[in-house]
């Protein structure tokens, strides 16, 4: 199963419509949390919002998360050890106040378990890559290793 989420604050019809178009070819159920969007999906189960406990359960079953580049979603996927494919919102299309999601994907691309589609045309190949990922969750990113080491040093009052 693939779970698609765009958060609760703003709609993101460009991602929802593109995933709806791809859903029949993915060979597995797709469930979408559509937020404040207006597009009505035809090929995937769509819900405006999903309660946290149910979202957690769905996350547990999912093979891949496809989402807007919201840090909260990235963190949830990381904790649940699920690969996540991010498509950034764009300010020039009225999808957010500014382009901070473009900056976010620029910095997160390439970290373990995180894939980026710059726009809807890149979704299909990136989904295939995301579904093919195995065993990455045991890999802590170099930046995470660094933070864990620094935290241990601080707690033990060793030099940083």
């Amino acid at each position, binding site marked *: 199963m693939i779970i698609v989420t765009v958060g609760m604050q703003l709609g993101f019809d460009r991602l929802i419509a593109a995933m709806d178009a791809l859903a029949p070819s993915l060979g597995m159920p797709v469930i979408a949390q559509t937020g404040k969007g207006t597009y009505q999906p035809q090929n995937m189960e769509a819900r405006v919002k999903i309660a946290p406990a149910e979202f957690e359960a769905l996350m547990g079953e999912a093979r891949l998360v496809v989402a807007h580049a919201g840090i909260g979603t990235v963190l949830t996927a990381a904790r649940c050890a699920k690969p996540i494919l991010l498509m950034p919102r764009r300010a020039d299309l009225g999808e957010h106040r500014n382009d901070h999601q473009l900056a976010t994907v620029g910095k997160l691309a390439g970290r373990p378990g995180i894939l980026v589609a710059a726009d809807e045309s890149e979704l299909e190949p990136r989904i295939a890559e995301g579904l093919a990922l195995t065993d990455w969750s045991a890999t802590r990113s170099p930046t*995470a290793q*660094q933070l864990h080491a620094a*935290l241990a040093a601080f707690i033990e009052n060793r030099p940083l």
Partner: protein
Amino acid sequence: MGKDSIRVLAVASGGGHWEQLMLLRPTLAQYDIRFATTEPAVAAQHGIADVESLPDCNQNMPIASALCALVALWVVLKHRPKVILSTGAAPGFFCILAGRLIGARTLWIDSVANGEELSMCGKLSKRFAHQCWTQWEHLAGPDRPRYFGAVL
């Protein structure tokens, strides 16, 4: 002294702040770790039943903030941790302030969500916590927060 005798209080509000604390949990688990949060139900979901509960607050809620500061002081006095750290937000900052009163070493780890500038509590922590860390290298600098990596 063994690692598991170092008492650490780790504080995070519900949502993204808590998610980040949970990503640090494998390291925290080596110590005598105590958790505090504004959403104990979520902590219970993650198998932490004996979490301390803090009332939520922010800079626009003066009365709730005063109450939160008192509860934070109570939690800190109850556990007497040697180290206090928070990934945000305001309730964690109050625990750090309370920690200064009992001589704890304190650490603020600013949220990875703050990629453009440090949070308000992060800025305050540069003065009030022993250490203030950002998770974005470009925000670090000599007189600014330090950078030692990120949860992601």
